[in-house]
């Protein structure tokens, strides 16, 4: 017996490698984001002075502008500002609130230029809404989309197939805000089946939580369900014509087993990848849905941040969104590595 340490499990190595790559990726993304929001406007002719004066009331005096520049840290060179930003995320930040130094624990995404409050808690307070919206919609579209896709594939050419594929095509062709507005107008105002749509925390009243989210869920899920139905159908049609399916049938396996055990499983693999990516990208869809339904989630927070030109908020929410995407991709990759040994190169 030699004392050689056992080689770590290949999946572990893979995960560790991917994690390191992910951290690196996030740093690059944060750099680019920072450069785009702080450097690009400057290249485009924005001055620190002009920027600072946006966060002052009427008639900014030069002295007030200067005070604000200092308070917001705009007077420092950009690399220093970026360094502060990064350090805040890792180590937290001390902020001069006046009476005392307020400590903003990591991850500290800085303080809003507009209301001088830490950005991170504001984003976190929007998370339950966005997660509620995303989770419900995701379940709806995944189940609905895949089911419709499978049935359509199996009943290819029938009325059901044509109809559902027609609706699916409409679904991917309709702007989400348009569907949302129509739904809101019809089912909340005209026939108040879901009146007074506003977010109620799940912990406070699960029933009301669900009732008030039904419309946004359906609207958000409609777009994706349509996409997934089309993809599932195409995938199923392709797999069902594969040789091994024919073999399985020839072996005399029951049709149900053939469809679910062999056909669907293969057809679903790409769907899972796409699902992972879509979940990461969902903030985009959430913005439009939340704006349309006035839900106070991350999406509405983003739009408010942009209306107020509140750079720390914009930076924070962009990075958080990037974080979701990267993590979703990581999870998909890891799942693949666990399932399919060939991926662990």
């Amino acid at each position: 017996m030699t004392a050689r340490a056992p080689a770590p499990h290949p999946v572990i190595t893979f995960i560790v490698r991917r994690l390191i790559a992910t951290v690196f990726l996030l740093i690059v993304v944060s750099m680019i984001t920072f450069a785009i929001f702080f450097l690009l406007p400057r290249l485009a002719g924005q001055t620190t002075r002009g920027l600072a004066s946006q966060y002052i009331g009427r008639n900014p005096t030069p002295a007030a502008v200067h005070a604000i520049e200092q308070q917001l840290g705009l007077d420092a060179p950009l690399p220093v500002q970026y360094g502060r930003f990064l350090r805040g995320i890792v180590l937290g930040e001390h902020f001069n609130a006046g009476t005392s130094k307020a400590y903003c624990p990591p991850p500290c995404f800085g303080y809003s230029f507009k209301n001088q409050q830490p950005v991170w808690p504001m984003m976190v307070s929007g998370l339950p809404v966005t997660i509620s919206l995303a989770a419900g919609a995701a379940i709806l579209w995944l189940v609905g989309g895949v089911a419709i896709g499978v049935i359509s594939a199996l009943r290819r050419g029938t009325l059901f197939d044509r109809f559902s594929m027609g609706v699916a095509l409409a679904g991917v062709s309709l702007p989400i805000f348009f569907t949302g507005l129509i739904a809101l107008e019809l089912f909340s105002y005209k026939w108040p089946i879901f009146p007074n749509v506003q977010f109620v925390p799940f912990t406070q009243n699960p029933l009301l939580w669900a009732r008030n989210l039904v419309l946004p869920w359906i609207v958000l899920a409609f777009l994706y369900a349509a996409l997934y139905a089309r993809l599932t159908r195409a995938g199923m049609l392709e797999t069902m014509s594969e040789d091994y399916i024919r073999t399985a049938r020839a072996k005399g396996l029951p049709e149900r087993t053939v469809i679910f055990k062999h056909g669907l499983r293969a057809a679903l693999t790409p769907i899972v990848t796409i699902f992972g990516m879509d979940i990461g990208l969902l903030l985009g869809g959430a913005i439009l849905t939340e704006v349309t339904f006035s839900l106070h989630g991350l999406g509405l927070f983003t739009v408010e941040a942009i209306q107020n030109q509140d750079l720390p908020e914009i930076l924070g929410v962009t990075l958080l969104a990037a974080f979701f995407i990267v993590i979703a991709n990581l999870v998909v990759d890891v799942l693949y590595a666990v399932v399919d040994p060939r991926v662990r190169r």
Partner: protein
Amino acid sequence: MRTRKTIGLAAIGAAAALALAACGGSGGSGGSGGGGGTATKASFNAGVTHVVNPSNHKGGTLNFASSSGIPDSADPGNTYYAQMWNLTRLYAMPLMTYASCPGPCGLKVVPDLATGPGVVSNNGLTWTYHIQPNVHFEDGTLVTSQDVKYAVERTFDRSKFPLGPGYYPSLLAPQNATCAKAMAAGKTTGCYPGPYVDRSKNLMGLNAVQTPNSTTVVFHLAKPFADFNYVTAIPQSAPVPPNKDTGANYQLHPISTGPYMFQSYQINKQLTMVPNPHWNPATDPNAKQLPSKIVLTFNVNPNDVDNRLLAGDIQVDLPGTGVQAAARTKILTSNSLKAQSDNPVSGFEWFMTLNNKVPPMNNIHCRMAVEYAANKTNNQTAYGGPYAGGTIGSTAAPPNVVGQKHFDLYEATTKSQGDLTKAKQQLQACGHPNGFSTGITYRSDRPKEVSVAQAMQAALARVGIKLTLHGFPTASYTSNFAGVPNYVHSHDLGITVYGWAPDWPDGYGEFYYIADGAAISPVGNTNLGELNDPLVNSLLGKFATENSATVRNSYTSQIDMQIMKDAAFLPIVYAKALLYRPSNLTNVYVQPFYGMYNYAVLGLK
């Protein structure tokens, strides 16, 4: 639309007397403060002149909603919006306030925390206020003059409180000789830096405000400023206990001196207020404590705000700028709904400035041509018509400025489609008989301004004046574009769409920032037409030392007339808002200075 209570600083003014005339609010009416007019049954515009549903019934939850968040800050020291000046009276008592009564009476300032209006010294440089000896904060501590002084000191820290008005730092006597020199050069070196930077922290280091005893506050001014009672009516003078001040975080829980106090506040989401147990109605006749809870919900879809309002789920739309188009149609086409609505002037005037420096508009006849050629009806329609937009304006000041008089130099109300013959005559006189080209600026994120710019483009084209449209975002409108004269000159921007509501309702508050030559500044300019008329300048200067209300009012109308003679302003509308009052709301009436319902006295049936 979110409209800003814009206004500027002010300089000098008179009339201690003017504000303090007797009115329901001052002193006497005790718990029933606010009952200025006589009660009346609900009918259209009843709330403009009378208290609708007067009642002292307690209980219920009063719900406000807004399509945005609190526009700047809930900290009384850091806010510049009419809706917030109105709302803060629920939790803050400034030295002075506007009388709680409908009609012209509500334009008067009356003592709130103070026992009487400020007393000015003979040289006009010292203002003395005595505060009520028995007002308490929500935690039971007694309010002293030091708390008022501390509140004033805070406003000197522009880095923590950049959003509120900057009157105290500019009006009060400089901290020392270094500061006096620096201020003359537009700097603040050596000046009082606010309580956080001041080394004698919490030791009341501001020299210009003295507290000889616990109920007396003395303000030392750099120059006479007769309008000082208006300045102390801004919520910034509401007391702040130094040991409870949390600086930039004070907005999350201002320590209340009013009938309500914060229970919870999530920025941009919800604010809940509950009755303040240490509030004494006898000390605060301008407010009432009727609902058992007040909830403000923010960032509700604008159309949804109206639907909830009409359905009775909420009682008040916080910004007070009126309902959206859909609700307007519902209200105006139903007699019963219309009887529950009011259509007051909001205090804003929307207007365009015609630039004095941009050729060929530097020629008065070219400006007059624009005045005559504009289609005032279409301009009014662009702002939403007579109910949602307002009444067609013909003067530079809106009617709820004390002293404003009606006149109409350019047939705005008599030939509201425009007078093309006269426009062409003026073009002839200006040497451009076939018209000329110039630019119009407006805030591209405000649909009404976009519409009016286009309406102007179409109207002026009738006499050959070509307008190019230049829209800019509100956030940088005065800081980078329309308020930067160099930019305006180099881009030939002859017409600027703008709006204004005074910080206080007299000629000085109305005109100093938008018409005094001294207010023209290279960046962040608010005198957008760059008017520098000696007569206007000198009349505005006289406000500082003039004490007679009659004379001051005559100045106001003279300035107004002169501005219009210069064809420096092209009035659009005296803004109006269509407000809806649900039937279960009590003590409802329009506070004329804020141009919306008086939030300090509302109750529920």
